[in-house]
């Protein structure tokens, strides 16, 4: 697997568990990254965008991983 920066992984992990961040990234990536206090280079943003697109496209394996992550994050809403 290609080397992917820690910042891209962090942003992707956060986006996966927080739909607000997903929406914000799609509408205004600069703002989203500034909220996360992340400084990504243009090439890192391109890399992140491609992974977010895949996330949104909902491939079965990804969908399962994402739903696991989302369900895990949903506990507070149910308490």
């Amino acid at each position: 697997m290609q080397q992917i920066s820690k910042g891209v992984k962090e942003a992707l992990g956060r986006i996966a568990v927080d739909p607000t961040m997903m929406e914000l990234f799609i509408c205004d990536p600069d703002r989203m990254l500034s909220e996360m206090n992340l400084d990504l280079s243009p090439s890192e943003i391109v890399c992140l965008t491609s992974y977010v697109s895949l996330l949104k496209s909902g491939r079965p394996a990804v969908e399962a991983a994402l739903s696991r992550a989302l369900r895990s994050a949903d506990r507070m809403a149910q308490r």
Partner: protein
Amino acid sequence: MSSSLSMGTDSQLTRPEVDLISLRFGRLRGAMPPLGPLSLKASLGAAGISCRVTDVQFDTNMNAFSIESLANWIRGSRASTIGFSVFNDAIPLVIAALDSLHGDRDLPRMLIGGPGVVGIAPRLLMRAPLIEMVVVGEGESVLPVAVREPQRAAVLPGVFSRGRDGIAVGTGRTRREQLDTLPPVDWWSLPEHPYTIVPWSTMRGCPFSCEFCEIIAFMGRKVVARDVMAAIDDLERATTALATTQVAVLDDTFTINKRRVLGLCAEIQRRKLRISFEIFSRADTIDREMMENLSAAGCSRVFFGVDAGDDAVLNLIDKRITIEQMERTLFQAAEFFQVTASFIWGYPFESHGSFQRMLELANQFHKHKGTFPIWPQLHLVSPSAGTPLFEKFRSTLILDPAVETLPMAGVLSANSFRRSFSTILDVVSLDPLLAAPFYRYETPMFEQKRAAVEDFNRSLDVSLGELLIQELTIGEEYATN
């Protein structure tokens, strides 16, 4: 932009007698249908009362700050009665939306219920004159009475209304429902395909008394369970109607009764239900035999509330489990399922040493190399009216709009640009009782703790990102081959 989803037959959708709106702003947007309102709809239907359920999860315009959207939905309702089903993070929104309707004429009657009204009913009636009744507790038996016979409903336990002098009257919570006598949810009335997870409830109530939790005030300690066969019949109907194999068991402590758990697992296997489900458990109510059976029946994840990092704090929150028990059970569970280890930090009595021990334990779980991963979650304790913790420490509540609080993670900062932010903030700042989850308790060295939690969460994000990238890459290779 997508819009809210409405459920009901055509005539119910155009002019229902009751309009129920589920104001749930969880992160799992749209994955699960709102089970509580659907059960209320079934009870209303059995009483001959038509009902439409509106689920705002799909509406990107609807969030805890969308005053105008909610006000417009109320104005647009053609029902004679509106019912709000709320968690406590929606209370300020409901108040602000009703404030904005001041002066409107011919509005429907308005009732409110759900977990969010626990501990606040009289104050809510005082603050929001348009609300006629607040129902505290389970609502299936009470709601049809409240719709058709308000005067009779007003004297029932758990129903709060205004007396002749305008002062709020009411007491306690509603009588416990006998779950096997409730009309079944009509899963086929749900719109096609938007939901991907079946919410499955096999019991209600919790016998434990953790100080931060409002379940006792909402439902009581008595656990009421459904018949095993009836519960699984319902599960089969739901998975068929929703065309999904994903199930989230909502029971607060699914593993409280070993014999019952083994019975449910055996029946799931006997019927060859190919489902994947997740449960909430406690470290002292599950053993290896249950884990084996749960895993064989399709359980893929178990959530444990660890809730602290040392025995001193566990004692103070009345958890009645030791850290040693937690470790033993969670490590064992990771042989069978993915495990969520949920921690709560920021208690008023949490020393920095206790906090550090919690972080160490969370790290220990995260680094554990079992068959399945253990995912820790760190949650800032959320003030919740009606809980023992809130009663003891409400004088220490702090409102800090710069700090993300729970269950509003990200909302206060991410929504500060919205037009309605200042209006909601006014409602929140005027009455902590009605807006408890927007506050936090005072706790020693809060800023240092928060910084440490942010660092920890960043490391979890990186781990999750790595996992996703692996799966996305595999998925891409699979798709192109």
